[in-house]
């Protein structure tokens, strides 16, 4: 926060916008390399070439690519995300719907994993060197790297097919209450919890160990404060700060990276939407999907940095020298 919070915020936001623009150009360039064309993608392989040409003309997919990109950018400036070629309908309802789905699943996963992993991390630190510490560290370490589809299949089999406790497909029937929706989201959230548990627990443990061994904790103990007060007032506050950044760093994965889980649990998240749009060469949908994930990640990272900076005010400029 070298030159005051307002300037810092402005700088970070401008960087964010620049990155988003860069992102849209990269996606536009990438989009051109997709094989086949929209008309063929909709009408199917055996459709009559004349029909394909007519459909391309109708959708305007036959215009030069740069024109399509410029129109799309103009649209963005007027706040409309453009028209999906494949569904011939405005893109925004699809994107918002998919984003809402992804955020809901991400929220459920976070609500399950954050307290669990931070609790485990702090416990492991408080009991460092003992068996429980090794078990938590090893579990965190190995679970984190197991690909989601391995855990998902295990979870589907165990809870969905054999025990039948929870529904397998994560898409709830229209009109089910919040609790009903939650019921559908627990199974797909489990693989995410398994992946994220390791990251957060390890960071929480490292932070707590560092705080426990810090001099200011020794000062607190020497004041004769009780163990609980020392932990609560001095250790935890400094220990859990870095975990905020770690959790924020998982945003792009949590929001857009769950293509595997979405396909297994039949859940229409933003990741699958982007992949489908790529297959169908639905350029506006693809661009809007990628940018929404990008914007979401930048926003959350910005928020996390601001929160961290707020909790530990940076040194006053002009110190030392």
């Amino acid at each position: 926060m070298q030159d005051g919070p307002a300037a810092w915020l402005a700088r970070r936001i401008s960087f964010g916008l620049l990155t988003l623009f860069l992102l849209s150009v990269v996606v536009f360039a990438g989009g051109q390399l997709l094989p086949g064309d929209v008309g063929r993608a909709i009408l199917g392989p055996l459709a009559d070439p004349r029909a394909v040409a007519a459909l391309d003309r109708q959708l305007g997919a036959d215009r030069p690519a740069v024109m399509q990109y410029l129109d799309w950018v103009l649209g963005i400036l007027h706040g409309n995300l453009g028209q999906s070629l494949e569904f011939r309908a405005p893109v925004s309802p699809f994107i918002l719907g998919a984003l809402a789905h992804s955020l809901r699943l991400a929220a459920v996963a976070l609500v399950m994993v954050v307290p669990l992993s931070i609790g485990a991390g702090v416990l492991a630190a408080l009991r460092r060197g003992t068996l429980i510490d090794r078990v938590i560290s090893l579990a965190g370490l190995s679970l984190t790297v197991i690909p989601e589809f391995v855990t998902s299949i295990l979870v589907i089999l165990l809870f969905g097919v054999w025990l039948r406790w929870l529904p397998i497909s994560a898409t709830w029937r229209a009109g089910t209450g919040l609790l009903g929706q939650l019921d559908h989201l627990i199974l797909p959230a489990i693989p995410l919890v398994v992946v994220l548990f390791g990251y957060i627990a390890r960071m929480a443990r490292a932070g707590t160990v560092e705080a426990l061994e810090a001099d200011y904790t020794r000062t607190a103990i020497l004041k004769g404060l009780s163990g609980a007060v020392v932990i609560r007032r001095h250790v935890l506050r400094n220990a859990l700060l870095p975990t905020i950044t770690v959790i924020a760093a998982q945003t792009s994965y949590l929001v857009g990276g769950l293509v595997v889980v979405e396909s297994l649990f039949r859940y229409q998240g933003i990741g699958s939407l982007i992949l489908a749009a790529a297959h169908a060469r639905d350029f506006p949908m693809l661009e809007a999907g990628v940018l929404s994930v990008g914007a979401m990640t930048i926003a959350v990272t910005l928020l996390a940095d601001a929160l961290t900076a707020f909790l530990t005010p940076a040194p006053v400029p002009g110190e030392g020298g």
Partner: protein
Amino acid sequence: MRNPFPLIDPVRRRQGPRENQLIGEFIAGQIGRRGFLRRGSALGLGWPLLAAIAGAIDPLGTLPARAATGKAGTTIRVGSPMPAGAIDPVTVGDAGGLLMLQQVGEFLVFDQPNLRLAPMLATAWKPNHDGSVWTFTLRKGVTFHSGGMMTAKDVVATIERLADPRNASNALSVFKGVLSPGNIEKIDDYTVAFHLDAPHGNFPYYLSSDNYNAIILPADYKGDFEKTWDGTGPFQIEKYTSKVGASFIANANWWGGRVLPARTEFSFFAGQQPQVLALEGGDLDVISQIVVQGAEGLLTDRRMSIIRLEAAIHRQVHMRCDIPPFNDQRVRRALALTLDRPAIIQGLFRGLADLGNDSPFAPVYPSANRDVPQRRKNIAEAKALMQAAGSRGFPVTLTTEHLLEMPDYAVLIQNAAREIGIDVRLKVEPPAAYYGSAAFGKSDWLDSPFGMTDYGHRGVPDVLLTAPLTTHGTWNAAHFRNPEYDRLVAEFVAEVALDSQRRIAARIEQLLLTETPIIFAYFYDYLTATRKGVTGVAPTANGELYLQSASAG
């Protein structure tokens, strides 16, 4: 419902020409069940014989008349493929899209599972002397969901819309060279005449449920089907969410009588695996179509029941006849002889398929000829042919799509070909990349010397005979040019009478066995899976699902 004809053929051998003529017309659906019974008895055929033939050929009778047996008012939960893009009767071309249309829309004629036509929105249809003009009489008292009555002007407008090239209709490839825009004549409010470009014996199939774009829409349809969902069928739209699912409610004033279930719910799936798990997990009652490969679990699961429909779904393994290494027909025949077809059927489909005899005439087609000897695995003959052709084996790349069981079938071909020295390398691509722009020179499908392509079920073999094999066929991946073959196919297509169709079929099958441009190893059954206790679910081999008499008990 196995192949009905073995039962009938011995009977027919004992009948005279006129009786056979009648049976042929009844089989070809040119006369209704009651007409057959009436004229058959007039010809002196005994009542028990007539009933047996009628029962074998048309067990369902006209669909609606079936007695509904299950519990009323239930909700049927169906797993179906994800529709590709917007639901639009004119452009739809994928299984997911057609299933949605078919829930609300109806066709003039219904192509039953036994490939027999039954009246739907048209009560009767008859050709003129040479089959170049077909006249349809429409059913009275049919209302659209939006309230209007269905009359000839709606039918004319609908078919006109499909035949017009400016409308990017998927049905263009069906009507090409058959029906041109402007030749549809409204005789009166309930009669329509179709003037064809050339005589077609099987034209009614082109307006049947076989051609999924041909659901009848109101004349004033403006192209916004996803908002109106306006059809005449037993169900009306309740809610549609693209990429997620759809739900329909019973249509109280459906012309076909009572609709048993209160609601039906469709959930869209990107692949078969999640659907199988959902059915096992109790989230679904029905899966519209499953393929044996990957769903073996359902076949042996006591809690599930499988509906099997014999069908003409098959894989065409083409070998380009115009360039080496397959320009010599002896090499092509040698390769065809390496395949152990019964073992392939057992391995890939658990036996749920018919043997293919390297021609489009699937056993399910009434016009297919039984007498042509079935090709079997014969390595000795194959090696002899290779010797005769002066070839000691060669490397070649088999290009195919990553779709259902095709990659595994390619692996089986790879191992079989190795027995006569042909070293096959596999190139498996996503379907979109395999088809490319679906034009010669710009598509792996049409350019590769050795390729495998998936073909869906069709009510009649006509399109399968013309498009992939005739000299100017648009799908002629094998680059097969044989004037003799072209002449025979033109003759077959024009023929109305079933018996003459079967005579021509025999000569076509014989020609293709010698030339073997394309290997047809199997025609696998169309399978629908349901939970035990779910009754009245009526699928058809081209992907439709009639649920008006279904109940989730």
